[in-house]
């Protein structure tokens, strides 16, 4: 492909290269699903209760409480500041007006694109129709030629058959044919060598060949 933009080039160069993919095994990314139940070997295991020293427990609780309070406060602050609901311009008329304005702009761009595409499309369709007509004409000619050829072939066959039919045995010539066959017996009981020469044995009457 000749048309590669800069961005697609960089994507290609930064892609991870795995030299021998068959030597890699994918990591199991999720825990075993709950419905598979407890493993047989772990079924009757009773995990010991964790024993945390009192002072450590108190300190951990204090830190955790502080953390949760602070996170809650920060989350609340960010929500109040950035959530659409709390934005100063969040009156319905304004939002609708903005939307309509944006929609009109998008519509204009879309119409422009459609017109551009329409010219291209009509051009393409015209080209396609011409191409199809040419193709059809070509096929028709070929078909005519083929039919002609077939007819000639058939007529030739018929001619040959007609010629061959002269030697056919009819009820009128049957008697004569029998007479001829009786008078001229043929014996094929001979051997041939690699060159196709007939080797006639001593028992064979050469006159019967």
């Amino acid at each position, binding site marked *: 492909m000749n048309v590669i933009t800069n961005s697609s080039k960089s994507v290609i160069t930064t892609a991870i290269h795995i030299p021998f993919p068959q030597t890699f095994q994918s990591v199991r990314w999720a825990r075993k699903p709950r419905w598979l139940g407890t493993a047989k070997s772990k079924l009757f295991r*009773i995990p010991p209760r964790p024993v945390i020293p009192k*002072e*450590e427990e*108190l300190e951990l609780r204090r*830190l955790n409480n502080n953390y949760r*309070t*602070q996170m809650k406060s920060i989350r*609340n602050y960010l929500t109040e500041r950035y959530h659409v609901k709390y934005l100063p311009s969040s009156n319905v008329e304004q939002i609708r007006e903005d939307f309509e304005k944006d929609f009109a702009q998008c519509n204009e761009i879309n119409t422009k694109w459609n017109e551009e595409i329409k010219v291209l499309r009509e051009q393409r369709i015209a080209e396609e129709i011409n191409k199809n007509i040419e193709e059809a004409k070509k096929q028709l000619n070929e078909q005519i030629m083929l039919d002609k050829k077939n007819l000639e072939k058939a007529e030739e066959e018929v001619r040959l058959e007609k010629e061959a039919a002269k030697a056919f045995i009819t009820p009128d010539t049957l008697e004569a044919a029998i007479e001829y066959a009786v008078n001229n017996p043929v014996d094929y009981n001979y051997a041939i060598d690699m060159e196709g020469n007939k080797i006639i044995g001593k028992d064979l009457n050469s006159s019967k060949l």
Partner: protein
Amino acid sequence: MPFKYIGRTTDFKGKTLWEIVGNLKNYGIGRYIKRNVFERYPEPSFMKIVKVETLPSPLEASMDDLRKVKVWVEKTFRGRKFPDVVPLKSATYKSDYVLIPKDEEKKYSDLKLEPIPEKILPRTTNFPPLLKELIYRDAEVKGETLKEEPKLKIIYKESMQSCYRVAKEGETPNVQIAYGLGTPISPSLYQGIKLK
């Protein structure tokens, strides 16, 4: 026959509320009960039954589906009596209720309650450093100048049981919610570490 318990241990110790209330005369109205887990607090926590409504037994009684009951109580939690009668229902299946014998009832009814000192919590705290920087920069872009350091409004969870309140406007809080590690309860854990 002595019981031998197997499996995981639990913090609960006692009976379900229905086991207690259903076996008492007049459903135990006027009697005192307590939750065993609340015995962990130094201040007294107990309840006096005011009204009882029964609920149907589960179709298949099992350890996972124990019978509940609706009970209204005068509740005292950590030495502080609730102003209104409290309904209990969803937690009544827990096998953690203990009936207080009649001869001990006087001890609870005559108890002079000394509620734990109320914590007054600060309304605001400092922003985390990066967020603060962001706020300053945002203001700079908008062409505003911040007169004083921006403060983060703290959100607290409030419940009937909470022993704290948020400071009023201009009031000095007696607890600090500092950003970072703060003041440790157990300084022995931080030996050799510099705390700001």
